Each structure stands twice: as structure tokens, then as C-alpha cells.
């Protein structure tokens, strides 16, 4: 079983470390964003990266040079060659995602995902922004989505913290609480 998430995170960490060490974090960040854009915009590129490449690992690296040429910084170019050699080009979207998370973390920027049960009003979004800002600082990337399975309320993910104020969450907690063994003898006494 290939643990793609684990590999992607390791690649992203290596890329981030290399970028910081070489003092080209801004350039690499821009390259990663461009790479992500290319991935989303080009079905051919996606097909190429997701297919198993024929030939030797060295020829894979050469293919990468031909496709991306000199467009990218050295750190990104080296990463792409490595991905090609190990047949891991399909991990690009995961790597860019993790890389962004590392950059955000380094810049003290919180990743905030707010899920509302129904389309939120602007003041509700502002309230979420204010709450997160008070607890984690003003820099944040906030995404808002609607998830009707929450029934009512809101569920907010801030980095690796989850604030669940939804009705669905409340019901789940109650269900879990009720399924725990009850001390019948205590009750009887």
C-alpha cells in the first residue's frame, strides 16, 4: 500500500526546507502556485503524470526537463526530477497543498475551513473571522463551504483544531455518550 499522503508531506517538507536553506522561498512558493495552476489547467499534464512512465528513471528525469525546462527554480526542478524518477509525479497536487500549509505555518497564517449548515450571512463569516483572529492572530486563509449534513450550526477547522458547534456533532456526541456503559447498580441504589 502506498501511503501517498505521507510521501507527499515528506516531499513538501523537503522542498520547503530546501527553499528556506537556499533563500528562495518566495520563488519556490510562486513556482508551486504555478505548478498547481498548470496541473488544474492541463488535462494532458495530469494524464502524463498519472500514467506509469516507460523507460529508465534517468529518462524520466530528462522528460521532466523537456516538459518544464528552465521555468522553475532549482529546488522545484530537482523535486520534479525526483518525482519522475520515483514515479511519484501524481503526488503533485498533494505536495503543493502540503507545501502551502508549511508556508502558511511559517508565516503564522492559520488555515481555516468553516462549514455552515446553510449559506451563511456575511456577518456570520465576519464573526468566524473575528473569533479565529482573537485566538490565532489576524493572518488566516478562510474558506467557507456549506455542508447540509451538519443540520444546523457551524463546524470550523483551524489548522489541526476542530471547533464543532453543529447540531450533527452534538447528536453524535450524545449518541456516543449514551452508548457508554451505565452504572445500573448505582442507579438502582
Amino acid at each position, binding site marked *: 500500500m502506498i501511503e501517498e499522503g505521507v510521501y507527499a*508531506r*515528506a516531499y513538501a517538507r523537503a522542498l520547503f526546507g530546501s527553499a528556506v536553506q537556499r533563500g528562495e522561498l518566495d520563488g519556490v512558493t510562486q513556482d508551486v502556485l504555478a505548478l498547481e495552476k498548470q496541473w488544474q489547467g492541463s488535462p494532458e499534464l495530469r494524464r502524463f503524470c498519472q500514467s506509469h512512465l516507460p523507460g529508465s528513471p534517468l529518462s524520466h528525469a530528462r522528460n521532466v526537463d523537456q516538459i518544464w525546462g528552465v521555468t522553475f527554480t532549482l529546488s522545484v526542478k530537482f523535486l520534479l526530477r525526483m518525482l519522475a524518477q520515483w514515479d511519484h509525479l501524481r503526488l503533485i497536487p498533494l505536495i503543493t497543498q502540503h507545501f502551502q500549509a508549511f508556508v502558511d505555518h511559517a508565516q503564522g497564517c492559520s488555515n481555516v475551513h468553516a462549514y455552515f449548515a446553510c449559506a451563511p450571512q456575511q456577518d456570520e463569516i465576519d464573526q468566524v473571522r473575528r473569533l479565529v483572529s482573537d485566538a490565532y492572530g489576524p493572518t488566516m486563509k478562510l474558506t467557507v463551504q456549506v455542508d447540509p449534513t451538519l443540520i444546523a450550526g457551524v463546524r470550523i477547522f483551524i489548522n*489541526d483544531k476542530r471547533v464543532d458547534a453543529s447540531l450533527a456533532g452534538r447528536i453524535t456526541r*450524545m449518541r*456516543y455518550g449514551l452508548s457508554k456503559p451505565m452504572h445500573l447498580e448505582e442507579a438502582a441504589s
Partner: protein
Amino acid sequence: MNIQLKPDEISALLRRQMQMSDRPVDIAEFGTVLSVGDGIARVDGLTKVMYNELVETEDGVAGLALNLEEDSVGIAILDDVTRIREGDQFRRTGRVVSVPVGPALAGRVVDALGRPLDGKGPVLSDDWMPVEGFAPSIIERMNVCEPLQTGILAIDALTPIGRGQRELIIGDRKTGKTTLAIDSILNQADTGVHCFYVAIGQKLSTVAALHMLLTERGAMAYTTIVLANAAEPAPLQYLAPYTGCAMAEYWRDRGGHSLVIYDDLTKHAQAYRQMSLLLRRPPGREAFPGDIFYLHSRLLERAAKMSAEKGGGSLTALPIVETQANDISAYIPTNVISITDGQIFLEAGLFHEGQRPAINPGVSVSRVGGDAQVKAMKQTAGPLRVLLAQFRELEAFMRFSSDLDANTLDQLAVGRSLMHVLRQLPNKPVAVHKQVAVLFAGTQKAFVKVPEHNLSEAMRALYDAIDNRESGQAYAARFAAKPAMDDELKGLLSTLIEESVKPYRKG
């Protein structure tokens, strides 16, 4: 359990339970499952999770955070792994794995997390203890000084076990290791020793049979079975001995006495090896991880005899290790031998010769139990080891020579009768005063002239005499008052032996 509950009580109970779990806002640290397989989940997030912390999903699937890596957390799943999918979320609980402890566990069969398996309802205990505890320090301990009678003559005489000792039971498969352990439990009736039998990777049918035996003999009243059977996930098999130890520690720390049997640590090591390999920890010798020694040393170091200031309680551990072809120099056996205070080696050859329990007196030792031995037993069993050693030597020599002098033949006869005396039926523990009597008879050559086919009968006659005859009861009373082998006790015993064994002698 017969509980009368009224409807309003049930509704009050439900309301209370709901109030406890009803929080309008729940704040949790979480991690997302990146991959799951073979009982191990890799999780992204949980950046502040502690080593050995319990984590759980919303559905209540529990896991143990074992590998804290730079990019992910390796979690050993303690429940049904098929309930976890990629993308599920584990949340921190902020606590390490704890299990219920205390009197409520007596007579129960529980799993490695202390959850009941016997259909007798929840374990009603207010006391919980973490499964991973610290071993008592030197200051908190004292020398092993009280005997733990196993009721097995060969053990109590040759490799005595004291309360707080760690004595390894080692041998090939089907040599009677578990029987020895179970006999030790059976013999703890009315001694105040709380027993814990930890079954690791055992067949359910085997454990069911043991449970039935212990129930029939009334031993479940003071026994708890911690079961992580062969079908359980490896993390539960890994946890089970620590769970049993935590339950036994409860009594040790309160001045009580407990006996815990780990059956067996070979399978425990294999479960840990499986987990470690799946967690991608570097393999070492026989693919076991580097901390395999620590796995067992930290478990067995928790066995101790506590000082008087600490209540004088004790935790005696009888770990079991299975060998392959009598090889005690394999990795896990040598590790556990070096940790424990002695070992009882069961030999397949002796077992097949009919010498049961098949204890090899040459290789079996007890490093600290001698100090805890009953004085009369110590005095009687003193020459036994030498006599048996001489017998083994002569027996080997006898194979090459047919002409033996009278003295040698006499020594051989004594050796044979002693070996027979050490034989014992399974699940029939013998009280210490009877053990001393039969051993005294053996070392005084009382059985030498008894034909071999009558030896068992003669021994039984001696036991019956102790129970039923006036002289036997006088001996028992004298032994209870002062268990030391003085002239008076020797005189009483000699009379008793003469009366009961004489009819079985030939000529």
C-alpha cells in the same frame, strides 16, 4: 446480578448520561487518516499528541499514538480496523490508556482495555489505573521474604517462589507450562492472593476451558482473566500484559498480594514485532525491534515485594515463554531469563517419559525464592538437588555399564523414587505440610523398597494418613504451629510414614 429499576429511574439515568455528553461546542485537536492497513493508521495532524496517548474517532474507535514522526503520527488501532477509512478523523483524548482496577474485577473476563467479555455486564469500578506504570524504586522495595506456595512439589521444593518474585516458566509447546500456572492459581484459594491470568495470542477454546476449570474449582472468585486472543489485533495483544499488571498493581500498592501470569511473552513479542514492522521501525535480530528487551523489562520490573512503609504488598509475576526444540538460547528466552529471578524449565523429553510436571531440575533455578521458603521445606529439600544430580549422573553412567555395585544400585533406587515423588497430577495442588511429609519420606529412603507401580499408591496413603489418622492430624497441627524440621516433627513424621508406607514395601 438482579437489579430492579423503575421507569423514572431509567429516564433520570438517561437524562444524566445525555447531560454529561451534551456540550453545545466541542473543541478538539484532530488528525486526518492518510492511510490505514494491518491495524495501523497514519494520521496527518495531531501535532501535540503525546506518546501512548489514546485517540478516538467520532464512532468511538480507539487508537494508540505510538509513532510521533515529523510528517505523520502512527496509530495502532485497538478496535475493528475495518471501521476506519481514509479521511476519517482521530481526536485527542488527552489521556493515556487506563483500565478499571479493584475488587470489581474478581471473577471477570476482560479484554486488554478492561472491557467485559463474559456477558456479566459492565465492570463497576470507580478506580482506574494507566496500563503503563512505573516500577517501584529501590527504596520502596524489600527482599522477597514470603513464600508463594504453588502446590506443586517440584517447584516448592526445588525452585521456590516468593511473593514479589518473577519466575519464568519456559519450555516447548505442550510440556505443561500453562498447567503449572493454573495449578499455582488453584493453590491460592484462601491465601488472599489475587490472581490475574493474561492470555496473549491464545486460542479462545483453550481460554474457555481454563475459565471453566477455574470456575468449577471456585478459583474465579479471586481470579481475573485478561484475554487478547489470537484473533485480536496485535495492539491489543501488545497491551494485554500491561493491563494485567496494572490490575495486579492495584493490590500491590494497597498492601495486598497479587499473582499475575503472562501466557505467553513469546506471542507478546511477536505481536510487538508485527506492530513495529508495520510502524516501519527498524528491525533487528529475528526482525524484532531494538526495544524488545525494554518491552519485557519494563513489564517485569513492576513485580515487587513492597517495603513495610509502603504497605508490604507484593506482585508476583510468572511469565511464560515458549521455546523451539528446547532451545533456551534463542532471542526472547535469553532476554526474559536475564530479566527474571529464575526459571522453571520444562523439558519435552521428561514429559514424554511420564515425568510430569516435566521440570528439569538441572536447568531450573530460583535466585531469590530460597529466602522465602518455609523452613521445614528448606531443611527437607536441601539434599534433594544433590541427590537428583547424582542420580542423573549415575543414570547416564549406567547406560555404559551392566555391573554395578550395591551402593550405586542403592543410589539409583533412591533417585528413581525421588523422581517419582516429584510427579504430580495436573490441577491437584498439594498443601505444604503434605509436600514436606512426602519429601521427607523420599529423602529418608522410605519409598526405596516400594515397587514402582505401588509408589503412587504409597504416596496417596501417606496423604490420606495426614488427613485422617490421629498421628497425621497431630503432625499437621504441629507443622502449622512451628513449620521447622526439629526432632519432634521428625519423630511425628517417621511414625506416620512407617504406619502408612510399610504395607506397600516388598519383602
